[in-house]
C-alpha cells in the first residue's frame, strides 16, 4: 500500500486532539525474552483434542503438546524417527506390527507413558470417530473391532491390519495428529457423559509434548507453557503466545514494531514492503497444498488428449509464480507435493502459445470454450485471469464463473462444473492420500458419489486405478516410490487434471528468531527448537 504522507496527516488531524492525552508510558515495543509471540489466523480451530483436531492451526498445537509412536523430525526432513516407540517391526505376513515403547518418558501429569496408553489412544481416536478418524480406519479398524486389532502387553503395542499394506503407509499415518498418544488416566478422569475426555481436551492438553496448553480462547489466541523433562530436550522458550490476528497489514505493522516475533499470514505485497527493514527477515518453505485446474470429462471435448495437452502448454506457470504469486506458490506439475515419498521434482510444461495452437489444430476441436469455476479469493481470481488471457491467445475462449467456496464445492461434488480451479491438501503424510484422490475411481457412475477428485471430474483412470491400489500394498519402500513416480508421469500427460502449483509459506520473523519449522508439506509447526 502506498500512502501519501500529506493525505495521512490530513486524515489524522482530528485524532491528534484526542491523542495528546495519552501518555507514552508502557509502550515498550518488545516481546518478553522467554516468550515467543506469534500472529496467525487461528479461527479454523475446531478442537485441540488430538482425536478430533484436523485443521492447520489445531494440528500446530497438537504437534507441540503431544507425540506419536513414530515422529517426523524437523531437523531431518523426510525421515521417520522413533517417537514414543523406540523400535518397531512387522511380521512375515505383513499384517501384524509390533512397537516397543520407550522407557522413562512421562506425560505432563507426571504419569509414565505405557503401551496401554498407546493402545487406548488409537482405540479412542477410532471410537470418537471425528473428522480425522478415517486415517486410522484405512487399516480395517472399526469401533467394534479396534479393541482386538490394537492391543498392549507389557511394554509392547501390537497393531493388526486387515490387509498386508505397505509398512510405510502405516508408519506415515502414525505420524499424523490423530495418532498422538494421550494420557489415559488424566483423560478418563475428565470424562463427561462417555465422551472419553473429548470436551475437556478442547481446551486442555494431556500429552508428552514439549509444551502444555495453558489457555485457549477460540478466535482470540492460546498460550503454551514449556514443561521440563521433554524427551527431545526441554524447549528453549518458556512460553508460546499465539494471537489471532487475521489481517495481514496488521500483522506486518506489529512485526515491524517488534510487538510480535513471527507473522504467518503475510501476503507477497507485505513481504515486498518489508524488504528494506533489517529488523525482520522472511523464511520461505513449501506447504502441502497443491493447486490445479481440472476439466469435467462429461464434456466429450475434455476426453480429447490433444486438446488437454494444448491447454497444458497454454498456462504461464512461471510468469504467475514470479509476479502476483511470488513466494506464495511455487510451480509444481504433479499431484504429490515436494517432500512426499515418490514426488516428482521436474516441471515439463511451460507457456508455449504456438505449440498450444498447433495441438488444438490437430485435435480437430473448433472454437473451443471453457467455463471455469473460480472461488472468490483474490489470488485465485488473479490466477484465473492469467489463464483466461493465455488461453485466449491460444484461441480458447474462457468464461469465468466466480462464486463462494462452499457453493462451488457443492457444484464440484455434484459434477456440475465444466472446468474448475481448485486446491487440494493432503490428509496425512503418505502418498496414498493424494494418489487415492487423483488417480483412483472404482465406479464412474453418477450415483457412485465417492467424492474422490477423479470421480468428480468423471475421469476413468483406467490402469492407473489398479497401479495406485498396488502401490499402497508395496512393501519395498524404494519400489513403492518408483511406482508413484510412474503413476504421476502417466497422470499428468493423460488425465483432465493440470497440476500447477504447490503452496509456499512465507513466514515473517524478527531478525533474531532461529529454528522455526513450519512443518513443510508433511508435518505441523514445531516450536520447541526456537530461540530468539
Amino acid at each position, binding site marked *: 500500500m502506498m500512502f501519501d504522507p500529506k493525505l495521512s496527516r490530513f486524515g*489524522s488531524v482530528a485524532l491528534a486532539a484526542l491523542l495528546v492525552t495519552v501518555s507514552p508510558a508502557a509502550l515498550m*515495543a518488545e516481546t*518478553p525474552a522467554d516468550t515467543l509471540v506469534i500472529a496467525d489466523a487461528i479461527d479454523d480451530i475446531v478442537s485441540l483434542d488430538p482425536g478430533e483436531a484436523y485443521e492447520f492451526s489445531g494440528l500446530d498445537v497438537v504437534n507441540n503438546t503431544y507425540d506419536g509412536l513414530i515422529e517426523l523430525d524437523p531437523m531431518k526432513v523426510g525421515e521417520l524417527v522413533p517417537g514414543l516407540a523406540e523400535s518397531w517391526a512387522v511380521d512375515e505376513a505383513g499384517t501384524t506390527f509390533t512397537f516397543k515403547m520407550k522407557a522413562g518418558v512421562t506425560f505432563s501429569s507426571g504419569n509414565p507413558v505405557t503401551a496401554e496408553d498407546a493402545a487406548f489412544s488409537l482405540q479412542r481416536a477410532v471410537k470418537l470417530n471425528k473428522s480425522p478418524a478415517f486415517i486410522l480406519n484405512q487399516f480395517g479398524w472399526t469401533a467394534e473391532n479396534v479393541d482386538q486389532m490394537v492391543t498392549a502387553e507389557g511394554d509392547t503395542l501390537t497393531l493388526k491390519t486387515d490387509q498386508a499394506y505397505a509398512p510405510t503407509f502405516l508408519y506415515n499415518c502414525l505420524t499424523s495428529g490423530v495418532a498422538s498418544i494421550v494420557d489415559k488416566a488424566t483423560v478418563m478422569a475428565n470424562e463427561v457423559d462417555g465422551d472419553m475426555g473429548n470436551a475437556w481436551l478442547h481446551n486442555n492438553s494431556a500429552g508428552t509434548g514439549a509444551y502444555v496448553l495453558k489457555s485457549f480462547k477460540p478466535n482470540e489466541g492460546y498460550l503454551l507453557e514449556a514443561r521440563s523433562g521433554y524427551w527431545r530436550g526441554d524447549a528453549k522458550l518458556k512460553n508460546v503466545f499465539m494471537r489471532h490476528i487475521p489481517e495481514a497489514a496488521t500483522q506486518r505493522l506489529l512485526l515491524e514494531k517488534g510487538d510480535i516475533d513471527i507473522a504467518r499470514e503475510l501476503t507477497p505485497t507485505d513481504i515486498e514492503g518489508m524488504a528494506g527493514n533489517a529488523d525482520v527477515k522472511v523464511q520461505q518453505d513449501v506447504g502441502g497444498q497443491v493447486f490445479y485446474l481440472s476439466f469435467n470429462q462429461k464434456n466429450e471435448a475434455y476426453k480429447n488428449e490433444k486438446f488437454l495437452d494444448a491447454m497444458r502448454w497454454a498456462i504461464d506457470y512461471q510468469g504467475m509464480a514470479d509476479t502476483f504469486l511470488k513466494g506464495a506458490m511455487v510451480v509444481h506439475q504433479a499431484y504429490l507435493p515436494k517432500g512426499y515419498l515418490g514426488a516428482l521434482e521436474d516441471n515439463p510444461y511451460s507457456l508455449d502459445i504456438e505449440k498450444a495452437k498447433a495441438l488444438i489444430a490437430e485435435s480437430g476441436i473448433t472454437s473451443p470454450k471453457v467455463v471455469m469455476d473460480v472461488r472468490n479469493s483474490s489470488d485465485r481470481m488473479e490466477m484465473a485471469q492469467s489463464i483466461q488471457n493465455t488461453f485466449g491467445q491460444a484461441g480458447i475462449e474462457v468464461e469465468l464463473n466466480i462464486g463462494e467456496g462452499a457453493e462451488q464445492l457443492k457444484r464440484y461434488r455434484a459434477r456440475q462444473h465444466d472446468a474448475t480451479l481448485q486446491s487440494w491438501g493432503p490428509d496425512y503424510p503418505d502418498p496414498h492420500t493424494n494418489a487415492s484422490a487423483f488417480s483412483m475411481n472404482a465406479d464412474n457412475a453418477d450415483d457412485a458419489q465417492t467424492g474422490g477428485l477423479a470421480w468428480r471430474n468423471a475421469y476413468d483412470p483406467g490402469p492407473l486405478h489398479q497401479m495406485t491400489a498396488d502401490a499402497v500394498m508395496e512393501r519395498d519402500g524404494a519400489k513403492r516410490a518408483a511406482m508413484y513416480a510412474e503413476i504421476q508421469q502417466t497422470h499428468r500427460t493423460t488425465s483432465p487434471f493440470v497440476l500447477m502449483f504447490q503452496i509456499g509459506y512465507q513466514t515473517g520473523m524478527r531478525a533474531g528468531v532461529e529454528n522455526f519449522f513450519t512443518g513443510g508439506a508433511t508435518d505441523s509447526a514445531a516450536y520447541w527448537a526456537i530461540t530468539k
Partner: protein
Amino acid sequence: MAVSFPFGPRFKAVVGFSVSLVITIFGLLLVTFIIGRVVPIDPVLAIVGERATQAQIEATRVALGLDKPLVEQFFIYVFNAFQGDLGASIRTGEPVIEAVARHFPATLELATLATIIGVIAGVPAGVLAATRPGSIADHIVRLVGLMGYSMPVFWLGLIGLLVFYGHLGWVGGPGRLDAVYDMMYDFEVPQRSGMILIDTALAGRWDMFSNAISHIILPAGLLGYVSMAYISRMTRSFMMNELSQEYITTARVKGMPEWRVVWVHAMKNVAVPLITVVALSYAYLLEGSVLTETIFAWPGLGSYITDALMVADMPAVLGGTVVVGLAFVALNMVSDLLYRLVDPRAR
C-alpha cells in the same frame, strides 16, 4: 361497566413492556433465522470438509437437526433460546453463550468509550456552530463533521495505526493489550466484567490499566470521531431550529445572559431529540464495527458474528444477533427513562 384491573398501572406497563420485548426478540430471531437459511452456504459441507462421503454428510445433517422441517428447527431453537441455551457453535463446539460473553464486553467497552468521546466533542461543537452560523468555527465544525461522515473508517484506522503506533509510537498497537500483559491478564486479573479497563482498575493493576488505555484510545477515538461527526451535525440543526423560536427571543429581550439562553433554556428542548441521536449512534457501535475490529485485532462481537456467518455457523450468528437485539431493547428503555427526565411534557 369497565373491568377493573387487579393491579396498578405500573404493573400494566411492565406487562406491556415484557410482551413487546418477547415479540421483539421473537421477530429478531425469525428474521435472522430466515436470512441464515437463504445464505447459500452449506454448514454441513463446511464441517465435514472435502473428504466426506455422502453417508457422512447425511449423518452430519441429521446430527445438526438440519433434516427436520424448517419450522420445527426454528421452534426448537426459540424454545432453547428462551431458556438461555443458545446452542453450541458448529465450528468450535463452544457454547455460544460463553463465546458471546467473551466477545461482547470488548465491543461494549469500545462502543461506550467511543460514544462518550462522541458526545463530549460533538455536542459543544454542534452548539458552537449553531450559535455562530456562517462563521469560521461553523465551517470548521461542518468540514470536520463531513470528513468523519465520508471517510472509510477502515482506511482511517490503518492510517491512524501507521502514524500514531507505527511512526510515533504514542499508542499501543492492535489488540486490547501488549502481548506481555495479554498473556497474564487471564491469570492475574479477576474477570468481573470482561471489560479490561474496569477489571484492571478494580484489581488495582494500574500498569495494565494504562496499557489497555493506550490500546483502546485509537479505535475508540476513531469511532468516537465518526460518532461525533453525526452528533455535531444533528446538534447544530436542532439548536439552530430552537434558537429561532419565540421563547428564546423573549428570554433574550428579558436580558438573560446568552450562555444561559443557549445552554440551559434551549438545551432543555434540544436534549430530547438528541437522546435519540446518541442512542442510535451507540446502538450502531454496539453491533461491533467489523472493519475496525479487523484492523485493530479487537476480539469484539462484530467480527465474531461476521466470521461465523462466513462459515454458516448459524447458532453463533443467531446468538450474537440476539445479544445485539437485547442491547437495542435495553438502550430503548434507557432512552425512554431519560425522555421522562428531560422532557417536561412527559412528566
